């Protein structure tokens, strides 16, 4: 059984997307944390040790790829699973994201909110 109060950190600039994910993920029982840019996101990863990070790639200050690189270089954060949720849909972006250590790569326009929740749960079961 999943621990219902596991922490999800969403790093996403768009407030509308943060709002709907906050509502959805809290509704299904997660604790929801959020950050609006890559730098704030990385700080929260270090301070809050979330159980999973939902990461956008096009972000102010520090982009998502750099967030991934930095968290993988830190032994305290390198094992936290990351699911990329981005609008970048080119094969090279997907390959890059996965090769940097993301567990899953989801394209925003191609996936529904409930499917994202399922994929998040799938990753948490594995950890």
């Amino acid at each position, binding site marked *: 059984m999943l621990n219902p109060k596991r922490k999800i950190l969403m790093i996403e600039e*768009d407030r*509308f997307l943060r709002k*709907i994910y906050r509502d*959805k993920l809290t509704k299904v029982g997660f604790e929801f944390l959020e950050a609006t*840019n890559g730098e704030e996101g990385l700080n929260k990863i270090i301070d809050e040790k979330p159980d999973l990070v939902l990461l956008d790639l096009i972000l*102010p*200050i520090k982009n998502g790829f750099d967030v991934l690189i930095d968290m993988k270089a830190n032994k305290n954060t390198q094992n936290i699973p990351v699911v990329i949720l981005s609008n970048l849909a080119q094969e090279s972006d997907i390959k890059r994201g996965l090769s940097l250590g993301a567990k899953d790569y989801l394209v925003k*326009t191609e996936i*529904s*909110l409930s499917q994202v929740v399922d994929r998040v749960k799938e990753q948490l079961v594995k950890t």
Partner: protein
Amino acid sequence: MVKYNFQKEDFSNNLYKERPKISEVISIVAHQLRHPLSVIKNYLEVLMLEDLGKINPKQREYLSDCLENVERMALNVNELMSISLIEEGRYELSLKLLSLEDLTEEIVDELALWAKASNCELSFQKLEKRLPRVLTDPIKIRMVLENLISNSIRYKKAGQGKIEIKVEQSGQEVMFSCKDNGIGIPKKDFSKVFSKFYRSEEAVGIDPNGAGLGLYINKAIVELSGGKIGFSPNKGFGMTFYFTLPIVKEK
């Protein structure tokens, strides 16, 4: 406060000096449109799942219509993205070995219901002998197959439509063909068929919403996979569209 790390000077120095290429403009516009579209799609989904309370059947119908239109717009935006990437030479395929006949069968099954509802007889007979596999992008070649078969269903003449799909070996290639008895394409337009935004007058009459990008994108996908795409008018009515993909020798 959040600050973006672009420099003001960068912006003013380049402004007006260089005209951006149209493909760049398309790419930027498409990127900008994708984001709000995914937001709207998510919000509609939450309403329809009744996360925020019950909705009545009429409200459900309206929300479902909204979702259908958002999805159509997302498809158009994706097509625009593909166009700009093709024009910039940055359109990428992720090549994998696949069986074109299996994929065709899958898509024919998926489109069967729509074909039937549109009074179209859609037939595909798999050959007894297995065909060699081809190297192409499974997701993108699926788009090509869906597009070619959907075109035949959508642009049918009044009365019963008839569509014959074949996948066969032709020398060192596997050839897919889709023969219909639909409205066809006027001879004067033959040279424009694979140009972007081309739509025949009759096609516009049947479906005013199409963008005329499907065949252009199909051509890029087939050619980037090392194949060829073409068409020939049928005796009587309709067209046959075909494409080939090279056979890869497997150990």
